[in-house]
């Protein structure tokens, strides 16, 4: 029964706090979390304690829609500076997108599984949550991206 011992395969940890719904066991069932202002309705990524639009401190947690469209994008042609954890040897150019969600927010995110040549403004996308790299403790670090819908 060794295959059923989760400890043996390392733990999953989120690349950023308060961004993913939990648990992280089934990544297909994980969504991005946000915060919505009870006063003006603006939404923000992750957990925030005040509304950067109206200044309200009356905020509630929400779960973002998985679907979106590509508002604009660029192509990352060279290895990004600093401690980039994606493939480096060889580096695989990828689309960086500003992804508009029906919730009223545009999120900067990698758009993967998409040949840069095929990227188009307004193309439909969907969230993908995935094991991105292993950290020093052997945990799988979970990141997000969008892929063509």
């Amino acid at each position, binding site marked *: 029964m060794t295959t059923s011992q989760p400890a043996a395969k390392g733990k999953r940890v989120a690349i950023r706090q308060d961004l993913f719904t939990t648990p992280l066991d089934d990544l297909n069932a994980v969504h991005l979390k946000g915060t919505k202002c009870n006063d003006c309705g603006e939404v923000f990524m992750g957990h925030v304690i005040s509304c950067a639009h109206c200044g309200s401190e009356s905020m509630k947690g929400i779960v973002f829609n998985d679907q979106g469209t590509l508002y*604009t994008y660029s192509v990352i042609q060279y290895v990004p*500076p600093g401690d980039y954890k994606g493939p480096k040897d060889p580096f695989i150019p990828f689309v960086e997108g500003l992804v508009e969600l029906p919730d009223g927010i545009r999120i900067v995110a990698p758009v993967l599984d998409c040949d840069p040549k095929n990227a188009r403004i307004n193309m439909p996308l969907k969230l993908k949550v995935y094991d991105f790299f292993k950290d020093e403790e052997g945990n799988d670090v979970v990141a997000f991206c969008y892929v063509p819908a």
Partner: protein
Amino acid sequence: MKKIAIVGVGIHPFGRFGEKSYQQIGQEAVRMALKDANVAWKDIQVAYLSSQYLPSTAASRVLKPLGETGISLVDVEAACASGGVSVNIAMLAVQAEACDLALAVGVEKMPRGFMDPMMNFEKWQVQMGLSTNPSYWAMSARRHMHDYGTTEMHLAKVAYKNHKNSVDNPNSMYRKAFSIEEILASPIVCYPIHLLEICAPNEGAAAIILCPAEKAHKYTNKPIYIEACVHVVAAYSSDFRVPIESMSARIENPSPVTLASQKAYEKAGVGPMDMDLIELQDTDAFCELQIYENLGLCKKGESGKLIDDGTTDRNGRIPVNVSGGLISKGEPVGASHLGQIAEIVYHLRGQAGARQVANAKIGMAQVLGARGNCAVTILKR
């Protein structure tokens, strides 16, 4: 509010200067400004130094070796708009009547190569590869192209103009004209931005000496008046710029450039069409186009047309970046806005040599950077 005059300017060329220390680079600009105003270091009553990359207490490090004073020497910072802040605060000191003679100096000696992205971005952004600065500019450019039909050629024309202008500016890092073909054939940094359409971080310094307008003639027979110097930070969802992680899809506030320039026009009692020259933040060629629109030189979406019709050429109706712009000069962040101001002062005084804009009476300088820090300064002779 009390009217303020610039009575001395100094600039250390922008570029790369090997082992030369930032102290020396800064001191040379300050000495030049002192000499220009015909005053001694001991006459200066307060000094504000802008930089983003120098170590803490840079003001003391740069200025104490100039001689014994005991005045307030202060470091200020606001990303690429840092220079606007040192000028703004130096003006406040004079306007508050705390002193008569104030120094604003910008100094920078930036690390070579890629800067540590952790300085601006969060760790998760760096790990996920979202920390490439030009890519944010490229995303803005691509949407603009989609919405308004702006083209790669429009961008190339901006770079062509600025490189051509730089040839006559001895303070510029690069002083070489390139053809449109060369620009479009240069490597793509991040589509639609080419290598010859983007600015490099570098080293340099510039300094100005301020006093109340009514005392300016003690120091110079060519005082230049600061009609407005406005610094703002982008309001919520008004600017898509590093290291942003998201934007509102519902709210679009006026851009920081719009906000700062509107405030500046109001203070100065002028409009964009009154300018005889403008120095603005061409971090990349698209950025210059976007700023045309946000300064009100043209309507939203019409900046491509503006560069096409030659309005901003050196011989056009409103020359923009006759210095060569950041694309040619490079961007020593803390010194950048002060360098723009020095350039405009030289034109307004008729001291700009081969690149002189004939009979320039009023000019504007503008910078913009991380987190939507923006400064706009309007100068008049």
